[in-house]
């Protein structure tokens, strides 16, 4: 049977549809809301999960959709955390304004470093992303910057005003939980819009074949820098969220381990679907909360083995495995 034009259009539509918003997307949020009404014991942990979900989603945008192998995504997280912390210390304690400032700081970091980093390819690009993060960490620790960043002590003791002027950030973390959930929803929505836009399609094209996209007249570097900045802004929102909810910004918000963790979350959950970020971050943070409390270095053993085994045996991640499984089940049903 020949493949007709109509078939092709249908396949293309299905390809788009998989990335569109659907009713399933509401599930994680319903789950989070349900968790709130059942118990308040895990609210701080839930908030940490959501911070990492935002961070992992931003990385997925750059890495999973854009093919930018970034080992230095923590640079954006740290920029967001420090700018939100500094904004709260010196300018205004309004959380929404602080979040916007963090996002702008992240976008600017992407706009400034992007043209340099994305000019290179392959391992050089990986090195450049790593170098940017290391550079920012040294900047945060530099003696000259100590009056601003607080050096190794970091930023602390700043206040965050009640959300919308109505809901103060309480010790039990109720407001923080809902605030984080709201940010997750906003970031998820932004990611969906970006991915489904013509721009998102061009980005996926660049990931799969940059040379061909250039021949089609797409300005590859400009698109990549734009994506890098959007992803940077979202990662900075994760950092800003962390700064506002924990009221503490340390040098560890610029440490490599955070980049590494986000990569583990993505490979665990699966790249290029956004759901992988949600699943991976949830599993990773919940597990590491238990394990890292016992012994951080032995936890590192586990992360190392998981990375190697996951890449070897399940490179598509949990979400990828589930998708394949459901597709197979569907094929079996339609064969009957």
């Amino acid at each position, binding site marked *: 049977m020949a493949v007709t034009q109509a078939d092709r259009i249908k396949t293309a539509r299905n390809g788009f549809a998989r990335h569109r918003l659907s009713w399933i997307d509401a599930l994680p949020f319903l789950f989070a809301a349900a968790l709130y009404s059942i118990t308040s014991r895990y609210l701080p942990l839930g908030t940490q999960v959501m911070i990492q979900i935002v961070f992992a989603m931003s990385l997925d945008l750059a*890495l999973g959709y854009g093919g930018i*192998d970034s*080992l230095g995504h923590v640079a954006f997280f740290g920029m967001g955390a420090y700018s939100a912390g500094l904004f709260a210390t010196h300018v205004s304690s309004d959380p929404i304004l602080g979040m916007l400032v963090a996002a702008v700081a992240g976008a600017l970091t992407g706009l400034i470093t992007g043209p*340099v980093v994305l*000019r*290179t*390819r*392959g*391992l*050089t690009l*990986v*090195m*450049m992303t*790593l*170098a940017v993060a*290391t*550079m920012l960490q*040294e*900047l945060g620790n*530099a003696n*000259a910057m100590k009056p601003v960043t607080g050096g190794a002590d970091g930023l602390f003791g700043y206040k965050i005003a009640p959300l919308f002027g109505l809901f103060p950030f309480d010790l039990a973390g109720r407001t923080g939980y809902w605030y984080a959930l709201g940010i997750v929803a906003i970031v998820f929505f932004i990611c969906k819009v970006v991915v489904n836009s013509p721009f998102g399609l061009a980005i996926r094209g660049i990931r799969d074949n940059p040379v061909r996209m250039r021949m089609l007249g797409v300005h590859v570097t400009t698109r990549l820098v734009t994506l890098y900045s959007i992803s940077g802004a979202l990662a900075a929102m994760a950092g800003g969220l962390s700064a506002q909810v924990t009221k503490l910004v340390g040098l560890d918000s610029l440490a*490599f381990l955070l980049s*590494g963790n986000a*990569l583990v979350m993505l*490979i665990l959950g699966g*790249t290029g679907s956004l759901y992988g970020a949600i699943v991976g971050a949830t599993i990773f943070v919940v597990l590491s909360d238990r394990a890292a409390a016992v012994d951080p*270095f*032995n936890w*590192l*053993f586990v*992360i*190392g*083995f*998981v*990375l*190697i085994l*996951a*890449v*070897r045996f399940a*490179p598509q991640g949990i979400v990828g495995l589930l998708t394949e499984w459901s597709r197979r089940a569907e094929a079996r049903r339609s064969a009957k």
Partner: protein
Amino acid sequence: MLSVVATFAALFVDGVAYGMILFLMSVGLTVTLGVMRIANLAHCAFAMAGGYMAFALVQSGHFTLFTALPLAALATMILGAALERTVYRWVYLTGQLGQILMTIGLVFIIVATANLLFGSNLYALALPDWLSRSWSYGAVAISAYRVFIIGVSAGIAAVLWAVLEYTDFGAKLRAAVDNPRMARCVGIDVPWVFSITFSIGCGLAAAAGILGTQIMPLEPWYALEYLVPVLMVVAVGGLGSLKGSFYAALVLGIVDTFGRYYVPAAGAFVIYLAVVVLLLWRPSGVFARA
């Protein structure tokens, strides 16, 4: 005036010594990249493994720095060869992202092992008396240890160059770097050449790790700490180019040392700035062939 010259000379020696250590560390990585296109981010972990092994040998009391050096380097070569035969077989099968993730996973495992065995303290190997002194000529003080590092590394570099240039194995390796497929076609066993080179690269990294402990002290996160400078050397030198790595390591070592001394406010940034400028000028490496 004299003191300016003296500082300059001392800094120059420090910079060259640091550059030489970076070169020894980057040899294995650049060959891995050149021949197999493998992004082996675990390379510095071998330098750390060698350093810790030598440290353990010296601690046991039966060895000195110089008897421990060949033993630990040999042990690291065996470790490298063993990993290349096992875990790295998986690494070869995946794409770039997979390679990065797998080798980072390996780094995490080695970091955790180092912490388990040695704790999180900083260690440096003790130097014999004749190395811990320094020569002074008027205002110029030059550390014997730095000169020793330069001498030994230059010796190793010369041997490397001679092996590459004049031996059968060197010719095979050069062919494999330039064109792996063609090398296979003319009957060179590229995977075998590669395995040997990988192991030698691990040994050289170990030697650098052992010799350099006074400049780069051992600690569990060593494997990640020095990954960035080593990657910079490889990127600026051009992937697969030993000569490029050599020059790049010297330039970056000197620039970093001078930068930290003369512009303390900018501290470590001088080297990043230098790398950014160099790579903007020539994205595929300054010393790479066009």
